[in-house]
Structure formats: C-alpha cells, structure tokens
C-alpha cells in the first residue's frame, strides 16, 4: 500500500479531519492516546486538568492484591532527559481499587485499562478474576516487570516461559471480550522471543516498553541516589529504545496490536512510535512536567497526521516498514 504525500497544511488551518480511532485487537478506542501506567495514578488527579474521557483510555497504576507501602525514599532521581524511579508499586490493593478508583473512572465516562502486578502466577490470575466484569474496564495490561518469588526473584518479563505463564493465566481468567496486553521490558536479550511467547500464551496485544533498569550515584555522598539503589529509567532518553523494540516486534509479528510507550512527550514522539508499528501510544513521564501532556499530544498528533496526508491513524501504523513504490 502506498500513501501519497500531500502538501503541508498552512499554520492556523482549521482542525484537521483525520479518523483517529485506534484499534487494539477487538478494542476500538476513540483515539490513540492513553496514559502510561504509573504516571497517572487512577486518573483522578489528572481530571483536574482535562476530561479523562477525552483520552483513548486511562491506563491505571499497577494494582496488586494487597495494599502496598512501596520503597523508602528517595524514590526519584532526575537524569539527562529522563528520570529514574523506584516506587516499589505503592498502591491501595485491588479491593480499594475496585471500590474507589475504577468506579470514579467509569463515572467520568473514561475507558480504563487496568494494569495488574503480582509476585506469582496465582496472584496475577486472582487479580484477573477480581476484575472480571468490573464496569469501566476495557482491557488489562499485565505488568510482568515484577520479581517472581517462586523463581528467586527473577523478573517474569526476562524469561519467556515465566512471561507466558503469567499472560496465559490472566487470559484464562479474563472475559473473552476484554483484551489482555502484556507489558514487555526492554531489558532482555531478544524482545521478539518474549513477545512471541506472550502472544502464543494468549496475549491479545503488547505494551512496550517498560522502564529500563538504571542507577545514579550522588557524588557528594558517593552512594546511590535511590533508596532502592536501582530504578526504572523513563522519559525522552528512552524513546529510541522504544522505537527499536516496537520496530522489531512489529516486523516479526505484524498482526499483533502494539500499545507503544517510552519517552512520548509530543505529537512528534507519538507519530514516531506509530510509524514504527504502534497502534496507540501511552504518555507517561511527560505528565510529571506537563499534566495536560496527553491531550496536547493528541492534538499535535492529529495535526501531524493531517499534514502528512493520512486520512486515518490506522494508515500510519507501521508505515515506516513499508517499501514505497519506485
């Protein structure tokens, strides 16, 4: 398929008409901009700055079975064009989440992609069971970047077998109409191998990328900045890694839906991930510096697609892989 390049629209032109609907498997979203898990809590705080129903969906902070206090502080270190975090999955637990957080999103008319995290396959399965039929839930995102207690703390996402076991368990306990997305870590030797294992285990789509494991030292104390010693690197610094991962997985598994994230702070960043193969994008760390970043990214992306002559978002997905006719 080829796309004719049309003239660039003049500045100040009326709002472009591009079909911005985004598809993640069976899930059709009104637009392709979501929040990234862990960067928007459960949407309520961002609701002070924009209508959360205006987003494609809100991806909530990973919820676990029990309430969790998280790690000691400092939990954050700013780095060049990014930041490290070591929160330790602080959260209220699934019961409070189902009582307070998900109903609020549903009342706003927002679509909720609920991120789940556990330390065993059984915990993930139980979370999926508890979420079954919850109003407002449109998809599950499985955060597999957690240590597997049964396997000496080896992170699920770094082992194809462990990743597949978790994804398969969540898939089996989730309503068939609700897509299950596996959130992949870039800290692996071959991300395509993990992606394929998750898809074979029943993942309806893939979210990528989670943070990269990093570390920073304080030159005055000459000790690690973070109380947790290591942390997840996010922000603009990681965007090229996200583009690479999305490119590789889309090339290998072109029919598998991808929710792309990693350093998206502008419409240009979002477009880059989409051209690499993302069907939709999540805005994460950018929210910390600009609470209205998700709606800004959506407006910018719409304009950029129109400027490039795309009639629909779907036409742009994976466009960078296509050979233009000579």
């Amino acid at each position, binding site marked *: 398929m080829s796309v004719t390049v049309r003239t660039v629209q003049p500045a100040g032109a009326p709002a472009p008409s591009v079909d911005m609907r985004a598809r993640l498997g069976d899930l059709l979203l009104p637009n392709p901009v979501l929040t990234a898990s862990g960067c928007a809590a459960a949407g309520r705080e961002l609701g002070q700055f924009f209508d959360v129903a205006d987003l494609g969906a809100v991806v909530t902070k990973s919820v676990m079975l029990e309430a969790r*206090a*998280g*790690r000691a502080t400092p*939990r954050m270190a700013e780095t060049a064009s990014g930041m490290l975090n070591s929160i330790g999955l602080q959260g209220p637990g699934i019961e409070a989440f189902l009582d307070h957080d998900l109903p609020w999103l549903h009342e706003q008319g927002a679509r909720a992609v609920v991120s789940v995290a556990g*330390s065993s396959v059984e915990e993930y399965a139980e979370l999926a069971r508890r979420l079954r039929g919850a109003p407002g839930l449109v998809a599950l995102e499985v955060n597999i970047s957690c240590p597997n207690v049964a396997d000496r703390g080896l992170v699920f996402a770094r082992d194809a077998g462990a990743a597949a076991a978790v994804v398969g368990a969540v898939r089996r306990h989730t309503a068939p109409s609700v897509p299950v997305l596996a959130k992949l870590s870039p800290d692996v030797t071959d991300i395509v191998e993990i992606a394929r294992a998750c898809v074979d285990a029943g993942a309806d789509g893939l979210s990528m990328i989670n943070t990269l494991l990093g570390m920073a030292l304080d030159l005055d104390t000459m000790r690690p900045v973070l109380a947790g010693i290591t942390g*997840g690197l996010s922000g603009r610094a990681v965007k090229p890694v996200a583009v690479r991962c999305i490119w590789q997985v889309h090339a290998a598994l072109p029919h598998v839906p991808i929710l792309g994230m990693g350093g998206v702070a502008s419409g240009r960043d979002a477009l880059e991930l989409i051209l690499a193969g993302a069907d939709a994008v999540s805005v994460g760390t950018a929210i910390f510096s600009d609470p209205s970043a998700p709606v800004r990214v959506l407006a910018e992306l719409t304009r950029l697609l129109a400027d490039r002559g795309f009639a629909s978002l779907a036409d742009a997905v994976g466009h960078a892989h296509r050979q233009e006719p000579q």
Partner: protein
Amino acid sequence: MSEGPLQVPGQLLSSRRVGAYHHLTLVAPGIAERTKPGHFVALATGGPDTGMSLRRAFSVYKVNTRGVYGGTVEVVLAVHGQGTAWLAHQPPHTPVDVVGPLGRPFALPREGTGRPVSATLVGGGYGSAPLFGLAEALRSRGCRVDFVLGAGDSARLFGVLDAKRMASTVAVTTDDGSAGTRGRVTDALPQVMAAAGTDVVYACGPMAMLRAVTAVAAVRGVVAQCAVEESMACGIGVCMTCVLPVIGDDGLTRMVRSCVEGPVFPGDRVRWEDVGTVPVGTVGAPGTAASGGH
C-alpha cells in the same frame, strides 16, 4: 473562589537577589485568586528544549490578584542545581509554565471562639516564605502573631523585615551568630512560646528543624503545623515519589504523598525519625518476600 489547581502559561516578571536567595515574581493568571497560605506552585524549568524532565516545586511567598499584568505569584528559591539555577537567571518575560495552587494550605484557627488565638510562626532559611501570607491571614482574624526565624547565617535568613512589620515579636537565630542570637530556632522557641502564650505553632523548613519544633511545641502541649519540603517529581499526586510516614486518624501509619495530603501536616502525626524509611507496621509494608518492581 474556585478550587483546584490550574496549569497556565506564565511569564517571569522579575527576578531579584535577596541575600543567598532569589525572589521571583511570575505572572500566572488565575492562580493568585485560588492560593491560600501554605499552597505551593510547580514551575517548569529549562525552556522548551530542555533535558530536564521534572518541575520544581516552591511554596508561594506572596500573591497579587490585581497586578498591572494580571495576577502574580511570588516564590523564593535557593540555587541547588541546574533547574533552580535556570529559574534564578532568566531575564524578565521568559515564559514559565506554572501549575498551582497545589497541596493543602495551613489550617487557620476557627474565628470567633472567645479570646484571640496566639500563633507562633517558625521559619528555617527560605522555608519562612509561606509564613508571611499566613501571618497576614492570622492577623486579619485577630490572632496574635510572633515569629522565630533562623538560618545558617545572616545571608540565609529570609523575611526578617516582613516579620517585623507583621508580628508582635520577632526572634532571630543563626548558627554562626552573624545575626540575632547564635543557635537554633528551637533554642529561642520555648521563651517565645512562654511570652506569647502560644496556642498553635506553624513551621516550615528542613525536616530536622520541623522534627525539633514539633518536639519543643509538644512540651507545652501545642501542636505544630509543619509544611514539609520533600523532593517531588510531579507535585500533583501521580508519581508517588514525595511520600513520608504519617499516622492517620485510625492510628495506622501510611506512606502519604506530601504534595496532595501535605505539604502541611500536624507535626505529631509525622514519624519524623522514620522519614526516608518505610517503618515496620506501615500499611502495606513489605514482608521478607515480594518487594520489588518499579
């Protein structure tokens, strides 16, 4: 008055050196009207092409709803790193995105309850900044206001003249004795409280000072309302980095966000000695297994 924070494309109106600090005035339409003493604002830093990903949070020093250029917000900052250095050295009219007002402000004594309330305000370094708006609000309710201001040295004191204009008494301490009495704010505080018949203490400054002020106030059966200075990534409650252990009404300790549940806490609720840790028994504290993940 409307509630909740706004995000506005603001502009630097002036930047002035005050001792070791910088006093910035920003045009930020709409924010001044909503701001109460103890609120803070989060400023974007570094300009449009910056490699700095996070905002910098500052207590509001003053607001003016009727400025020539629209509502203004004033903050005081110390240069600690790249972000604060950028903010301190921009020329007037530099665009600065402002989010605010954020956090929970100081709780004011109820009006019209018998004799006037005596409030003692304790500031460490430029931590005193939010106390002057508070002093005005207290005075307008007929409260007695006394100040204790302390710092490492005279250049790091902030607002002594403001305080003298507003307060019944002002005690000044410096670690090196370069201004006022040599020593800490907590050396002066018992005497000030005794003379003023203090009913409530308000404090803002470093954690160690807040802990010590809370203890001194408690000796006289007084609760100190403390505004904490935790490092924050977002300031709006989504990042979970600015947490500290706080005891709730149910007696349980939770890791609480200082940006939305604070920055003002009753001093007797904060587990000062455990700040920086997740104390044993905290709701959801990690067991021996199952800690990890970002």
